[in-house]
């Protein structure tokens, strides 16, 4: 029996939780990242291997994660969506998405889930505004003003989704998206789902830099894409998410 299966079978947590983690060539750090998450109780880790060319998938399996391998690279959001779809198939009604590079701290998982358990939000974003460079902060300002989505940390991949959010994000409309930020949040808002953000701490990446901000050309493409998408999906009235404090 895998470590995952044993933990899901436990009865002390009211609702089992899946952690969905897209990964591409993270062999250097994946074992340590997963060991931190697997130490949490009643967690089932679903790692989506986005056609890595290194040992990421094998190491993740060895660490006890369920690996969903993509035969062709489809990008971080495509891989995340695959994980959410798979979590729904396995019967999970709550999912937390985390990056595989060690930025997101497992001890904040309960902080993200708590507003969902209390029924005040369908999606909770783990916000760490202090991590942003000046460039990232300018990007956030531009994205907020064009899309009208007033979430502090728009690009954070540390999020919790409830069953309704998971259903929306498993749909074909969400497959049209390239990135997980403005498009995903706008889609959730269009379905009248509630968003909230919770302050969390984040670590610097254990290896490498951002894949989205890897070059000026990549930044330019990302910004043009995201600003146009945000503008086209803008709601008529501005959305301001309720600000909730971290519980840990």
């Amino acid at each position, binding site marked *: 029996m895998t470590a995952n299966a044993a933990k899901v079978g436990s009865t002390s947590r009211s609702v089992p939780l899946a952690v969905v983690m897209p990964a591409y060539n993270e062999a250097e750090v994946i074992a340590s990242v997963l060991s931190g998450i697997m130490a949490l109780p009643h967690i089932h880790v*679903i790692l989506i291997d986005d056609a890595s060319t290194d040992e990421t998938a094998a190491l993740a399996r060895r660490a006890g994660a369920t690996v969903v*391998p*993509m035969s062709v690279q489809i990008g971080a959001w*495509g891989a995340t969506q*695959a994980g959410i779809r798979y979590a729904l198939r396995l019967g999970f009604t709550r999912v937390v998405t985390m990056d595989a590079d060690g930025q997101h701290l497992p001890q904040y998982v309960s902080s993200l889930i708590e507003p969902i358990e209390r029924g005040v939000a369908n999606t909770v974003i783990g916000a760490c505004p202090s991590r942003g460079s000046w460039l990232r902060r300018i990007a956030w300002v531009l994205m907020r003003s064009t899309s009208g989505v007033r979430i502090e940390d728009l690009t954070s991949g540390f999020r919790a989704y409830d069953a309704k959010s998971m259903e929306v994000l498993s749909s074909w409309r969400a497959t049209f998206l390239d990135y997980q930020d403005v498009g995903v949040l706008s889609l959730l808002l269009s379905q009248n789902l509630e968003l909230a953000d919770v302050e969390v701490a984040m670590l610097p990446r254990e290896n490498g830099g951002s894949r989205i901000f890897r070059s000026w050309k990549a930044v330019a493409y990302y910004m043009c894409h995201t600003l146009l998408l945000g503008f086209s999906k803008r709601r008529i009235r501005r959305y301001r998410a309720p600000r909730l404090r971290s519980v840990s």
Partner: protein
Amino acid sequence: MATISLVTGSLGLAIAVLIIVLIRRDKLYVNHGFAWIFTALVFALLGFAPGIFDWLASHLGVAYPPVLGLAAGIGILVLKVLLMDIDRSHTSMKQERLIQKMGMLEADIQALKEKIDS
């Protein structure tokens, strides 16, 4: 009938025949064939009866009739390219969902293998 009208009209008919041959040889999907045959027949009609454009232009207030043909042609081409991009977007989306589905099935197979081995 002027020689040029015969040539352009015959060209339109030849294209219509070519479309049918392409459908017959499974090179072109039937749905796309409808639009192309219609286009070819319009070429043939305008080729055999170029006065149609003169009549249309006079009724629309266009002073120089060939401009109407050019504008209509460009407009139709732009629309066609836009429809192709829409179609490509949907195909790309379906492809991505298929890749995700395959990954999920592979994970299921792996889980079954582990269950059998244990």
